[in-house]
């Protein structure tokens, strides 16, 4: 057996056998946990379509929107959420004034915690210590609690107030319900409630 440097790698000796045994046992112990985590995540994987009601609480107006959500795995143990929202005009999406928004969020497990942090596809390796939250860098994270995928985004605004966006995607028998709130300095500015059905 040769490694890349051309030096021979010796097979494990008898003295290493107890260590290898211990490592094998550890691997066996850890495998079910990783599997459970993967199952926990994979329950959300799929494509969903549905409708939502948007309440603008500042001016007491309401809007209707079509939803298209895709939740899929990202790399080995991450999560990718893509969603398209279509702002309807009088319940229709084939008339002038209709708007379309498309967003994608990527999450990977946090290093030392039981939640996931958002990463940028262009800058996967940016150190979180570089983040200056008070200077306006947003922080985004997600977690799973029972049948709910919670996603939060937090930013300190220019004037020192904060904006918090809380997005809950709740698994149902037929699909996924959604609840979204945009909160500025403690006041709920916008609330979105909707339901979707799983298509795949």
């Amino acid at each position, binding site marked *: 057996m040769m490694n890349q440097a051309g030096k021979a790698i010796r097979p494990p000796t008898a003295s290493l056998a107890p260590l290898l045994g211990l490592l094998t046992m550890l691997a066996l112990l850890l495998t079910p946990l990783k599997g459970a985590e993967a199952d926990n995540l994979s329950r959300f994987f799929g494509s969903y379509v549905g409708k939502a009601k948007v309440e603008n609480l500042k001016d007491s107006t309401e809007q209707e929107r079509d939803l298209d959500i895709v939740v899929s795995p990202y790399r080995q143990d991450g999560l990718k959420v893509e969603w398209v929202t279509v702002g309807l005009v009088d319940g229709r999406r084939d008339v002038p004034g209709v708007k379309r928004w498309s967003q994608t969020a990527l999450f990977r497990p*946090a290093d*030392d*915690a*039981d*939640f*996931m*942090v958002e990463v940028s596809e262009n800058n996967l390796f940016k150190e*979180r*210590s570089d*983040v*200056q*939250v*008070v*200077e*306006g860098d947003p*922080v985004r*994270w*997600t*977690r799973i*609690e029972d049948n709910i995928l*919670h996603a*939060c985004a*937090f930013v*300190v605004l*220019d*004037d*020192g*107030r*904060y904006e*918090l966006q809380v997005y809950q995607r709740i698994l149902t028998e037929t699909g996924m319900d959604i609840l979204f709130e945009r909160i500025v*300095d*403690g006041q709920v500015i916008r609330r979105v409630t909707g339901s979707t059905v799983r298509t795949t």
Partner: protein
Amino acid sequence: MFLWFLVALSLTEAAAAASIDAFAGQWQGQQAETTEGTLDADKLSIDVTALSNGFEIAWHNLAQLHQGGGPDAALAARFARSNRQGVFELVPAGNSFIDRMFATPTTGNPLDGETLLWARLDEDTLAVYSLSIDQKGGFMLDHYSWTKTENGLNLRFRGQSEELGREVMIEGQLVPAGE
């Protein structure tokens, strides 16, 4: 033109400094109202010291007191001006006097398990915020705001705990200590 710029800049800085001065001193809690339960009004008391580049403040963790108190419910922090007008960053505690004079303001990253603390000052309101995220991703967000009134300060506190699934609101009045 440049002279006008300098005058405007010095006026702006003077106004900001004056605003901090308006909150400086010891303030005694007189009245407390909570969404549930009771809270000793004395725990609303604060002590604010104006500094050349910010301020120091001593106050109580009202969310913790509301949940039954604790030995570390008393809080103190020093804030320095950030690059944003009216926004202050936390200066880490525990440095020497010289270090503190020249310390670069730093902030905790809540995604790394640190508590993010910052403050905001506008014309008549001083606000202090804290955000922390627990091991499971639940957050705690506390927001204190003290607004100047004819007789003292009006406190509004909102504590939001996702883990506990509850929100605590506290309102109260503070007057200058000794009155």
